[in-house]
């Protein structure tokens, strides 16, 4: 594998082959809790993406200066700084979204995707590669949240991005289950089953 294609693969791996939620099975809590509507799901994805990419960049920049024995506390400080920034920004500029996401914004600190990427990748790779890796994992995470949000909002409330997308009879008796946590579990189970079916031949 030459240098260029391996670099590109840092980006693409995160989307399908190493998708954080569906393959690595990490970051499930926010995925299940905040994908109730398409807008909430994408909003959570964007907030987490900012933190993942930001921490990856800073850690890879400082990787030669961070002593190995205290790297985890330093990672956590860097991550929580980014989380607090996005928390303030959402509160100031997207108050409606912030009210919905609520406690899940501060909880990005403990999202395994963030610490996982920083520890497993950014601490060992250069700035540009770490940026690609963070971007790829962010896209994979946001993609799953967005698709789940779209499906749950469509079947659970009959709308898409808050706009009415179904006839009246559909909205009178929607699949309320989709808006509740069991609906999210079922959906992610179906996703996982589909992924397993179509990726069996590939090296997993």
């Amino acid at each position, binding site marked *: 594998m030459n240098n260029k294609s391996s670099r590109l693969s840092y980006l693409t791996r995160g989307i399908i082959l190493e998708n954080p939620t569906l393959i690595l099975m990490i970051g499930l809590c926010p995925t299940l809790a905040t994908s109730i509507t398409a807008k909430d799901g994408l909003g959570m994805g964007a907030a987490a993406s900012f933190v993942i990419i930001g921490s990856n960049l800073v850690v890879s920049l400082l990787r030669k200066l961070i002593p190995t024995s205290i790297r985890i506390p*330093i990672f956590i*400080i860097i991550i929580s*700084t980014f989380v607090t920034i996005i928390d303030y920004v959402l*509160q100031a500029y997207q*108050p409606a979204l912030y*009210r919905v996401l609520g406690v899940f914004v501060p909880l990005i600190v403990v999202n395994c995707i963030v610490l996982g990427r920083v520890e497993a990748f950014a601490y060992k790779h250069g700035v540009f590669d770490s940026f690609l890796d963070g971007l790829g994992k962010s896209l994979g995470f946001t993609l799953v949240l967005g698709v789940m949000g779209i499906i749950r909002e469509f079947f659970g409330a009959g709308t898409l991005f808050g706009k009415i997308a179904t006839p009246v009879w559909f909205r009178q008796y929607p699949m309320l289950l989709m808006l509740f946590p069991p609906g999210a579990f079922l959906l992610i189970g179906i996703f996982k089953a589909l992924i397993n079916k179509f990726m069996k031949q590939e090296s997993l």
Partner: protein
Amino acid sequence: MKSKFYMVFALVVVCLISAIALSQVFSITQIKIEKQKTEAVLANLNRVLPSAFRFEEVTAVPQALWIGFDQNGKKVGIVFKIAPRGYGGPIETLVGIDTSQKITGIHIASAAEGLKETPGLGLKVRDDWFRNQFIEKTKNDLKLKRDGGAIDAITAATISSRTVTDGIKQGLEMYGKYLKADSIQSQIE
């Protein structure tokens, strides 16, 4: 180079940079956050008492109470907040009342703001048809129809419907005195 001293140094520097960055972001966003909060409250106040031009908060009461004035500074009504216990938790409700003791509107906090009623049942207290039937009602109408009043209950959510109705009535009894023409002066100043 990577001695114990260096570890302390690295941690301190990272914390310091983080603190500086956060204080900068905080000072930029804080003004905006405060503005959003007061605007959100004001928007709800305007919704339940549309005739008021400005509001003054009364602080000497157990829960929130505002007095609304028109452009000439004349009192047009009051808005009070109640939080009666519903089926799943408190139902935070803003009630607007004009000086003729009639309800001008009610606003119920959404599920995202902490309303814990059952979706599809008790959560329907937020529906327009339920809220709007309170408009123009006075104290004696504030009972469910099955209790001899004028309010239609939500099907299969009688507890939530009764809670809101009774809560508004109690609030009216408690805060009604603030509607009298001269009660504000002593309360605010």
